[in-house]
């Protein structure tokens, strides 16, 4: 157990994990949006936004912006801590498992857990990244300020090599386990027993899509089209199209003629946007999307348009030859590859989706059309429908779960 390396929140280095967990478990749970937690997160957000070097981490700037004071106060209004028949409280010790590469979505979840009233121990990747080091230093500075004093002892960041005994000890001590990672990580963690009274929330691999109504796109003037392309760029090219909510499939809805015209306009506008914004396109990224294209072709799942062969630059587009299935989703590696699909009406998309789907970003549909699609979906399919441009925006309801609510508990207390 001495292979645990504490990155934040535990002062003396050779502290035994048992002792650390004992102390963390002894800390009381707070009620959601306790002033002490809110003030700390607010200050952390300010410091993050004004830290030197924040421009190199736009995703962390977005994080800081989201946790700004005004947003926290607005959010707090939605979660009363005394409902008249119950008190709401944090669950206690929360154990968070982060994915290998620091992902800002994961940061949102443990900060929300702090706001929900929990004490948090966060296992981060062994592989330090620039973003991770940056975050830890800003967190440490905030903890050292006066506003950090009440929160000391409620946040521990640590790392350790793959070790079932350590994960087991943490899982046995916590009241809430939050796992971010691939399906394999989720399966591995699930096999490690959790304290009987604890609950678990997992965020496994997901697949996300986008749907565009052809006629609505054709109705856009040039500036509006350029704006749509720019919003789509933000959804698809941040995180190299590898976030759970990055669109990997574009479903076109309308008559064949309109779809043809709309596609031509849209992809041209996106090309202009790519030329303007110059996203990262490392050799390895190019080769990864090329290899995926060969896999799609070999399995007769998808093909490029026309008969000129493969054009490897991003966006690399392939049209699905058969309904979207698990293989087609599993082969997708991100990196600027788009599967396309043509449908006469939006509701027909429902049958091709499964519990793998997370976000559907949309353009040009009425709420009634989206509602019809939602009601036709298979069980557990699609957690979120968002306008194009907001696929990566964080919401406190994530993967279908209201995080503040699941991170806290209700203690029934009727009016006497």
């Amino acid at each position, binding site marked *: 157990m001495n292979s645990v390396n504490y990155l934040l929140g535990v002062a003396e280095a050779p502290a035994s994990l048992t002792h650390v967990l004992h102390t963390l478990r002894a800390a009381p749970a707070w009620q959601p949006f306790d002033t002490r937690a809110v003030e700390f997160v607010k200050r952390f957000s300010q410091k993050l936004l004004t830290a030197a070097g924040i421009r190199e981490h736009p995703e962390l700037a977005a994080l800081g912006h989201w946790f700004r004071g005004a947003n926290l106060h607005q959010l707090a209004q939605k979660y009363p801590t005394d409902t008249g028949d119950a008190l709401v409280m944090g669950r206690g010790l929360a154990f968070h498992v982060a994915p290998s590469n620091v992902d800002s*979505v994961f940061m949102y979840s443990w900060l929300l857990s702090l706001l929900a009233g929990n004490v948090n121990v966060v296992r981060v990747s062994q592989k330090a990244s620039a973003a991770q080091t940056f975050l830890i230093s800003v967190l440490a500075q905030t903890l050292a300020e006066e506003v950090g004093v009440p929160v000391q002892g409620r946040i521990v960041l640590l790392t350790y090599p*793959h070790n079932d005994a350590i994960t087991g000890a943490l899982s046995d001590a916590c009241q809430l386990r939050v796992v971010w990672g691939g*399906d394999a990580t989720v399966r591995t963690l699930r096999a490690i027993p959790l304290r009987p009274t604890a609950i678990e929330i997992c965020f496994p691999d997901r697949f996300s899509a986008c749907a565009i109504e052809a006629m609505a796109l054709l109705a856009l003037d040039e500036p509006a089209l350029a704006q749509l392309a720019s919003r789509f760029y933000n959804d698809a090219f941040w995180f190299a199209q590898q976030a759970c909510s990055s669109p990997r499939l574009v479903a076109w809805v309308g008559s064949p003629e309109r779809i043809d015209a709309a596609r031509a306009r849209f992809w041209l506008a996106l090309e202009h946007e790519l030329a303007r914004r110059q996203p990262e396109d490392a050799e390895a990224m190019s080769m990864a999307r*090329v290899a995926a294209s060969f*896999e799609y072709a070999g399995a007769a799942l998808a093909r490029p348009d026309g008969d000129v062969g*493969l054009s490897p630059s991003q966006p690399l587009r392939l049209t699905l030859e058969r309904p979207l299935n698990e293989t087609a989703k599993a082969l997708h590696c991100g990196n600027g590859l788009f599967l396309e699909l043509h449908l006469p009406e939006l509701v027909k998309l429902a049958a091709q989706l499964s519990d793998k789907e997370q976000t559907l970003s949309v353009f040009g549909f009425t709420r009634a059309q989206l509602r019809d699609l939602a009601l036709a979906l298979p069980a557990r399919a699609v957690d979120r429908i968002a306008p194009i441009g907001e696929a990566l925006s964080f919401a406190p309801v994530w993967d279908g779960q209201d995080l503040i609510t699941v991170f806290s508990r209700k203690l029934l207390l009727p009016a006497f």
Partner: protein
Amino acid sequence: MMQTDPLSEAVPAWPDLPLDIAQPYGFRADAKGPALLDTLNALTRWHIQRSAPYANMVERLFPAGAQAATRAEVPYFPVRLFKTLELRSVPETEVIKTLTSSGTTGQAVSRIYLDRETSMRQTRVLSAIMASFLGKKRWPMLIVDSADVLKDRRRFNARAAGILGFSTYGRDHWYCLNDALELDAQALQAWLTRYSDTPVLLFGFTFVVWQGLYQSALRQGVQLRFPPGSLLIHGGGWKRLLDQRVSNEEFKARLHQQFGIERVYNYYGMVEQVGSIFMECEHGHLHSPSYADVLMRDPHTLQPLGVGQPGVIQVQSAIPLSYPGHSLLTEDVGTLHGQDDCPCGRAGSHFTVSGRLPQVELRGCSDTRVMA
């Protein structure tokens, strides 16, 4: 180019190897170019008829199909597809060996299916290449590995396949490493006393030679001299040596210094194209034999590159019949240095390999490394 047998319908008419097989470096571009292109086109046709996934790829991604006008137009696919697709051009019952390789992209394993004829073609081609370096006689042969690598004969990994393939060119084989890949110096000394005046052939994988022979001898304080004229052939990639900052030049110098080995030849080859290897010459360039060639492609546009421009290496070979592997895009980076003009005098293209393409970084929440 098609071999036909009107007497028996059971014997398929496979595309023959081009030109005179006994002269791997004897044909200049004007003769080799058209002959190899014809064979590659015939192989494309052959595999389209026999492998559905291959036919799917060609039909969707290569408009020229089996009518390529240049070698650059011959369809190809990335080697990593052997890990995910079943790429076989013969019925399962005709498979006599399955070669496997783990490569670097995750845990999946490549599967290369060999039938009798393909296996024989590999041997014929490798023999011709070896004969041009070793002559016809068989040399006493030291294998720098442990005999344990060969244990599972049904499912060969790349190392076992390489060792067995090259073993044919030697006699009185001796495996000089124990199962922990450490040098058994005493046993080697005893074997060497039999050949004080006869040059011996050493064969091994680059990193095994470095760790198991060179570093192990250094650690044990063993002083060994190989007979004058002894020759080492090694291959399998430089990744682990580059990690230790050992260059080809240093590798050669250290082996010379420690063991007196003067002739050290690297080769570039892969389990996906056994047989038609690219041997290094005295000037440090890798050479295409007449039955194979390379092409460098730009990793972003996939357009073929000219002399002096580093790119992703595509390998083409006239050998594979039982799997559609006659034209493959590797994950290696190399530079073409010329055609028919190496100072060593061998005809054909010559090139160097500089390393591997970096793998993609996993980001966002799509991480699949288990608690790494």
